[in-house]
């Protein structure tokens, strides 16, 4: 698979860059079988994969598309990802998809599912309500029933049974790239000089545009390459980046952040594609395994209420465990979940004496000079305090 791209690119990271630049329409074109678009943040990919569909990231279009129609559907105060995602559809770049899935992450995503349903009657539009309560609150049984409902809808659409064995196989398939992404992030936390933040981002983002087996191979190749690197550690500030879990920042912004003097030791870019802290259990009822993993083995997220792990406390813990010196809040413009969380995060970090800075972004932004200045000033205030 992906032979055209393999032939021209030299290293795994370069290949990942090309795949990301080509974006979703190209990923749909490249894949010979049917594909399924997954809007952020987390989606139970295994269910679609087991149905013979390739889950692909339906995550906006950054600066690659001009908004011609979507502005008339969503107001000026709505985030860019909602508009560029809709624009992809209105410009007929998603017609080859079998369907798309949206989730209970925010009010905009929920309404976007409706707008998709009305405007693209040919697509199978799934809306999954992911549990917003703790594992002990009947949430697991509920989530199993919700996943089974989504499965039944897919079965009806595809006129095909999706058996538990197929779902277990898909869980095994996805556990591999997810474990490799965890390794990538371990390296970043331990030796950030080995992998730049934009390299890590690109490698993860590329996974949203390709089959999981290919993604695993790409990650393995990259990890092997990183192991041989002997880069010197620079005098930089170790930061955790938080807030870019849905709409993704342009790579240029991530580069600027590092160039301005940061090592990104942890972030929540493409959070849904590396949602689990451990493997999903590969035996037993696979749907229950996915539900349990969502509730108990998942990362904290601004799009999920978890009474057992308040996010603002978890962020402080993560700052400590990664040895970070500061936090860069990077919410997408108009992103309510991230902008709300900022208040509690800030309050908790100030209690713990952790410095922080707020940098709002938009996927379409293309000049970063102001941001560079802000981050440089922030970094200097920490290095020369």
């Amino acid at each position, binding site marked *: 698979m992906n032979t055209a791209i393999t032939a021209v690119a030299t290293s795994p990271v370069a290949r990942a860059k090309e795949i990301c630049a080509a974006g979703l329409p190209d990923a749909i074109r490249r894949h010979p079988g049917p594909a399924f678009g997954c809007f952020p943040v987390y989606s139970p990919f295994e269910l679609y994969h087991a149905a013979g569909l390739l889950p692909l990231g339906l995550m906006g279009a950054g600066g690659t598309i001009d908004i011609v129609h979507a*502005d*008339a*559907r*969503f*107001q000026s*105060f*709505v985030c860019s990802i*909602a508009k560029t995602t809709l624009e992809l559809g209105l410009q007929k770049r998603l017609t080859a998809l079998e369907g798309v899935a949206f989730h*209970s*992450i*925010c*009010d*905009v995503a*929920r*309404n*976007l*599912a*409706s*707008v998709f*349903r*009305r*405007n693209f009657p040919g697509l199978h539009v799934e*809306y999954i*309500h992911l*549990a*917003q*309560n703790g594992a002990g*609150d*009947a*949430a697991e*049984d*509920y989530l*199993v*029933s*919700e996943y*089974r*409902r989504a499965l039944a809808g897919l079965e009806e659409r595809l006129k095909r049974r999706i058996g538990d064995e197929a779902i277990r196989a898909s869980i095994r398939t996805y556990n591999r790239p997810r474990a490799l992404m965890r390794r990538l992030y371990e390296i970043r936390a331990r030796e950030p000089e080995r992998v730049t933040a934009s390299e890590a981002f690109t490698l993860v983002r590329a996974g949203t545009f390709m089959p999981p087996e290919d993604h695993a191979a790409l990650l393995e190749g990259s990890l092997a390459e990183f192991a041989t690197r002997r880069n010197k550690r620079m005098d930089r500030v170790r930061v955790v980046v938080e807030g870019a879990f849905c709409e993704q920042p342009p790579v240029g912004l991530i580069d600027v952040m590092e160039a301005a003097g940061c090592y990104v030791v942890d972030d929540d870019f493409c959070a849904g594609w590396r949602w689990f802290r451990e493997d999903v259990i590969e035996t037993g009822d696979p749907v229950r395994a996915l539900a349990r993993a969502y509730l108990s083995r998942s990362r904290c997220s601004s799009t999920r*209420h978890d*009474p057992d792990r*308040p996010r*603002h406390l978890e962020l402080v813990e993560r700052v400590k465990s990664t040895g970070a010196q500061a936090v860069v809040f990077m919410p997408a*413009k*108009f992103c*309510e*979940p991230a*902008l*709300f*969380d*900022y*208040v*509690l995060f*800030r*309050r908790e970090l100030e209690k713990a004496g952790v410095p922080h800075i707020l940098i709002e972004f938009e996927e379409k932004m293309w000049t970063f000079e102001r941001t560079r200045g802000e981050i440089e000033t922030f970094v200097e205030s920490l290095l020369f305090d």
Partner: protein
Amino acid sequence: MAEYQGVVHTKSREIMSAWYDRLAAAAKNGTPSACIMISGNCVEILRSFDIEPVFPEVNALQLAIRKQSLPLILKAEEMGYSSDNCAYVKADAGYTFGEGGPSDGKIPVPNFLVCNFVGCNVYIKWFEHSAAFLGVPLVMIDVPFLHPDGKPTEGDVRYVVAQLRKLIETCEKVTGKKFDIDRLREICALSARAGAGWARAKELCQNTPAPFDAYFDSINMMGPINVLRGTKDAADFFDAAVKEYEEMVAAKKGPLAQEKFRIVVEGPPPYPYYRQFRDLFAAWGAVAVQSTYSTVGGIWEWGFRHDPKRPLESIAELMLVNNLCNRSLLQRYEQIKRYVEEWKADALVIHSVKSCRLFSAGQGDMRDYFANQLGVPTLLVESDLEDPRYYAQAMMKNRIDAFFESLEHRKLLRRA
């Protein structure tokens, strides 16, 4: 401009003030209280334990209508809230849960918070913040979003009922009282009476002229139905309201001297400029015969009633199925379509508010559906429900005048 505001207005004020007095008393004497949201709420359960419900949304809208919201919003923005966050939350942060807690003694610090998460994701954030700032426990009632076929699955219902039982446990712990299902049944019977009255009042707006403005006057009834539901006061209030409106229908009276246009309004009102906004419609003789905002708490006009025989299950049904917020945008299109047809409306007015993306995100698509697909004259205007900075009277007047002028022209052409 003066509209007819009869018994309903006075009585609503009376029983709502009595509730505010009870809150002030609770702030003083420590009667158990809990915060809860308006949409698809389960206030009956709190009431069965004599826990006084506090509704932060109602506090926020009162502040806006009294033109007190802006300094509180600015205070919240100093706390780190963004100009893009819901201003209801910001007003509440500034007033109630920001550092120091409620300061004027009018609202109690609640014993706990009940987040009835029905659609609005901001509800979750709002109560997470209240809980963190006030240091009180939060009970989350996660209500699965309604599916396109309008039917919750068995798993959805089981999940909600299980969480309601957990809420009951919390209420027992806080009050030291044992749960009494017969008491809940009595309360549900009172809720059913109020629901029936509210449904009948709205049905009366199918008459020409409509006896009240189903957008602007509805707030007099939204308090009793959403806040006081389950009390005798609320049930009696709706009996009186229906009586008054039936008399008005018989006498062919409406809120304005003359009803020239019948409109359906979608979206919450601009509370900081309620009066001014209303006047822009009254000037054209436009009366709202239905509104979606009046159904945020619940939709009774299609037959839903609390059921004393199945108290918990019927409470779960209100939360899952019968309120605007837990229904999809497309289900809202269908609701509006029914309103336009069955309430015989001339036009649809969409008031898009920045604060509430649940309401507003995608209203451009809604306009496309009604104007282009169904041929219903549709006006879309923008401001906010709480933040006065987003309301521009001159621009609003221009848009509304232009719309009704063209509507009048159309009517004339049709008659000719």
